[in-house]
């Protein structure tokens, strides 16, 4: 594999950048693989990469219905954080933060990780108390957390609405300084390029149409490019998990929902951090191009459509304007939608299944992007060793029937309620 560096950039400049190697190949599927990963998104690509890198398993195929990185890894708001209260979520995400910090070097691909800090705004005394509790839980797990008062928040984000006569005055906030953003497409492409170089076959435009299961063991998958045998199969298809589960006669604690995001026209650098509104569901950061990147609530009903609906967008942006009044002056550049696995406690599932050799990675709700490296790393471990790692032991499939839920937000099963 050609190493990317300033020297290779200069060298290729002399040939008008016509001689770069392809970043990944376009192979025809083999008859059999040791592991097939279904889903060429961030998590699937990361899983294949860590299978090859950490476990030396390189006879691996990634099967993707569309093109790699065309699903939720290309549709998110690129926020990376580990500001969780529960141990399972905190330790898992903080492990991921370490992988994020090393990612550009590790993948030899600039993922533009920008640890600019995230501020969750608080709008009442009760919310300050809750944030103080969450911040303390984070610090006990070795995650950086700073509780800010109103003046401290105002210093960091003076453009927020600090006027006297507002419905949701800013009391303060909880900040995780090490949180940030990254270039989402680069994450998918970086993992794909490295996985490909270690022998992983990335098979695009190949839809899974069924599974070959016999005596409780997985034997392979049926696809639009023919049947492919496999010793092990991993599902990494958040958003479409229920469709594949139906082919396997499985019913999961997941509903599929639609989430929108949008960006404004680009403006000069204004916002240094990721900021979330505490009295509703709205989050905002500024991209390197200058666009305000915004997101918020789910559309709120089961959907497989990757297009959003205007009432939700209006609701979300109303919250945005309550937080940052200047947003009302901006033109909207682009809006888009993605489909989410909404699990019944708001936390993901990375586990084995009742079918021997079939592994499940799903239920990411709207927190999938930041989890990409940790999810790939732990899922690769689960597949390679046929047992869960301590980091994803809490994300079990049977935690719902046993009552060991990880309900970070305390929303119960209706995680789509806004």
């Amino acid at each position: 594999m050609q190493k990317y560096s300033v020297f290779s950039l200069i060298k290729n400049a002399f040939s008008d950048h016509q001689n770069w190697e392809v970043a990944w190949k376009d192979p025809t599927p083999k008859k059999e693989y040791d592991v097939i990963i279904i889903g060429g998104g961030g998590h699937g690509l990361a899983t294949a990469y860590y299978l090859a890198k950490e476990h030396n398993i390189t006879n691996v195929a990634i099967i993707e219905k569309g093109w790699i990185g065309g699903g939720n890894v290309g549709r998110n708001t690129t926020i990376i954080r580990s500001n969780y209260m529960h141990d399972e979520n905190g330790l898992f995400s903080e492990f991921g933060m370490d992988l994020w910090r090393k990612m550009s070097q590790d993948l030899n691909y600039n993922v533009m990780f920008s640890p600019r800090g995230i501020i969750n705004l608080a709008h009442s005394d009760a919310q300050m108390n809750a944030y103080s509790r969450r911040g303390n839980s984070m610090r006990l797990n070795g995650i950086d957390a700073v509780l800010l008062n109103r003046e401290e928040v105002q210093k960091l984000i003076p453009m927020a609405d600090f006027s006297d006569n507002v419905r949701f005055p800013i009391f303060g906030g909880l900040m995780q300084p090490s949180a940030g953003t990254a270039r989402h497409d680069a994450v998918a492409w970086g993992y794909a390029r490295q996985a490909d170089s270690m022998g992983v076959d990335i098979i695009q435009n190949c839809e899974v149409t069924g599974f070959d299961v016999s005596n409780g063991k997985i034997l392979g998958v049926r696809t639009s490019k023919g049947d492919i045998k496999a010793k092990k199969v991993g599902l990494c298809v958040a958003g479409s998990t229920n469709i594949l589960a139906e082919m396997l006669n499985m019913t999961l604690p997941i509903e599929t929902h639609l989430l929108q995001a949008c960006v404004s026209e680009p403006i000069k650098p204004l916002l240094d951090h990721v900021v979330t509104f505490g009295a509703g569901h709205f989050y905002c950061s500024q991209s390197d191009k200058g666009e305000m990147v915004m997101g918020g609530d789910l559309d709120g009903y089961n959907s497989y459509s990757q297009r959003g609906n205007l009432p939700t967008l209006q609701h979300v942006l109303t919250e945005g304007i309550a937080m940052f009044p200047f947003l009302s002056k901006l033109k909207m550049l682009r809006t888009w939608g993605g489909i989410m696995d909404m699990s019944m406690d708001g936390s993901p599932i990375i586990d084995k299944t009742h079918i021997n050799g079939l592994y499940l990675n799903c239920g990411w709700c709207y927190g999938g992007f930041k989890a990409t490296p940790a999810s790939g790393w732990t899922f690769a471990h689960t597949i390679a060793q046929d047992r869960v790692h301590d980091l994803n032991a809490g994300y079990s499939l049977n935690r719902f029937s046993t009552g060991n839920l990880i309900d970070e937000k305390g929303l119960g099963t209706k995680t789509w309620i806004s």
Partner: protein
Amino acid sequence: MLYINCPHCGLRSQNEFAYGGDATVKRPELNKEISDQEWDNFVYLRKSPRGKHLELWHHISGCRQWIKVERDTSTHEIFKTYTANEAIE
């Protein structure tokens, strides 16, 4: 914008409604011994199909009745609406 034909009020915009989830899940019968698996099925497990989906909506800013709506989850087309107690074969 979705337009939902409330069986009590007629065609109204989505803004008047709140979503109530899958209408096909059935609570286990009262006064019956229930296994953990049955509770799991009722509380947590959902088919969440792509295509036709029978779901509950609450006409919260209208007549405040719960209704059932048959809707396509990939096209958002609404086929039919029912009152909450209407039998559906």
